[in-house]
């Protein structure tokens, strides 16, 4: 039997997670089809980052399932989903070596050529030989996205990709994400900034207190929120 050529759709069913006796995520279900940017929004502590980590396999759920079309989100043994963290994890090496390290770990062939392609694709050639940890916050996040892109994922998870960046760097990251979406990359991101969700995402998953409250088109969600919780969140009222 031929292996499936795609890991999508991602089916999340009844996902729950608890730590230290506290339930942090409860019975979250959604399906992620191919294409577009989906934003998980909600107040602090809603379980946004946790949902991404469970989907990416960094954590094991207490109950429920994360089902990819391929075997654990891999095709031919290579993982086809990657993640960009809120605070980019930069190795104590040059920008180029950061890319090469990830490519060698995941793909393992044509490392130099793939590294060069990623540097060019994201305009990082001038920074290639600088120590990655001495780049600015925006440059580091761009490098982190390049590093994830270089792993040829079908799905990219982004956890608050611009929450610690200034407006200029944020705009740059958003432009990159828009371009990647146009090229067909499927993205699931978290953001606490619902204006950013509005600018980028076609679909919104609204989490509150560990539950999925709304799963809607971005325009519909912001135009006519179906729940009182979503309405209060959009109006900027604190949710407790």
């Amino acid at each position, binding site marked *: 039997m031929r292996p499936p050529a795609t890991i999508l759709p991602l089916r999340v069913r009844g996902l729950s997670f608890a730590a230290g006796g506290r339930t942090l995520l409860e019975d979250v279900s959604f399906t992620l089809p191919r294409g577009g940017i989906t934003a998980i929004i909600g107040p602090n502590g809603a379980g946004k980052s946790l949902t991404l980590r469970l989907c990416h396999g960094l954590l094991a759920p207490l109950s429920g399932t994360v089902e990819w079309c391929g075997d654990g989100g891999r095709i031919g043994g290579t993982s086809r989903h990657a993640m960009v963290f809120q605070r980019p994890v930069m190795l104590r090496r040059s920008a180029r070596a950061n890319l090469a390290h990830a490519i060698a770990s995941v793909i393992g062939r044509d490392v130099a050529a793939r590294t060069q392609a990623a540097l060019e694709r994201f305009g990082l050639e001038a920074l290639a030989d600088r120590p990655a*940890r001495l780049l600015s916050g925006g440059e580091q996040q761009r490098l982190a996205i390049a590093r994830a892109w270089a792993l040829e994922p079908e799905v990219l998870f982004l956890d608050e990709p611009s929450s610690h960046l200034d407006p200029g760097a944020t705009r740059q990251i958003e432009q990159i994400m828009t371009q990647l979406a146009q090229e067909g990359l499927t993205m699931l991101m978290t953001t606490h900034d619902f204006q950013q969700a509005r600018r980028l995402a076609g679909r919104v998953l609204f989490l509150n207190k560990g539950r999925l409250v709304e799963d809607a088109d971005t325009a519909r969600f912001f135009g006519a929120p179906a729940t009182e919780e979503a309405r209060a969140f959009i109006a900027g009222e604190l949710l407790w």
Partner: protein
Amino acid sequence: MDVASAFAAAFQLVLGLDPRFLQIVGLSLSVTLTAVVLAALIGLPLGAWLALARFPGRAALIVLINGLMGLPPVVAGLMVFLLLSRSGPLGDWGLLFTPSAMVAAQMLLVLPIIVALTRSTVEELWTEYREHFRSIGLTGLRAVPSLLWDGRFALATGLLAGFGRASAEVGAVLIVGGNIAGYTRTMTTSIALETSKGDLPLALGLGLVLIALTLAINAAAYGASRVGARFAG
């Protein structure tokens, strides 16, 4: 002989590259260098493993290794002596009072330093890198080479500290080496012996070399941390 003329004679020994003097310096350096290299080959992977592994008794093992960093050199020498003496478990190897025995004793002194420093360096890096490494499938022992490489500046400082401790100690090499002229006589054991014999120039000359070595090691360690800071941020 007064101290001033002893100093003058000492400088003559050093600058004149006296063969007896050079032999002692050469033996000391080769014994210590061999001990540090062997201890690094064992200590770096062992320390990294200890940083990542979780097993019952791990905390006790870490405390034990940290404690061994302060192991008195004479006690290390005694332990190796007991192992290698004719009636000891490794007595058949006939290594007592050879340079190999001195290497073994210095390894015992250096190994805890390297293991402890590697453990703390790698553990700190792992805390920072864990999620990214898990994301790219680098888990368990597969992560070790990357972690050791990224800790290279701190680890270099640790190796230098080990080199400093081994090259400066007297007790261990004296016990297991026997201070045999031309064979197991090192800088530190010579200084102890020649001072008691009253041959101050040789003792002073070797003392100068040891001080220069210590300064060089500290300069290298400082340099490593500076380069590290510039590169690692």
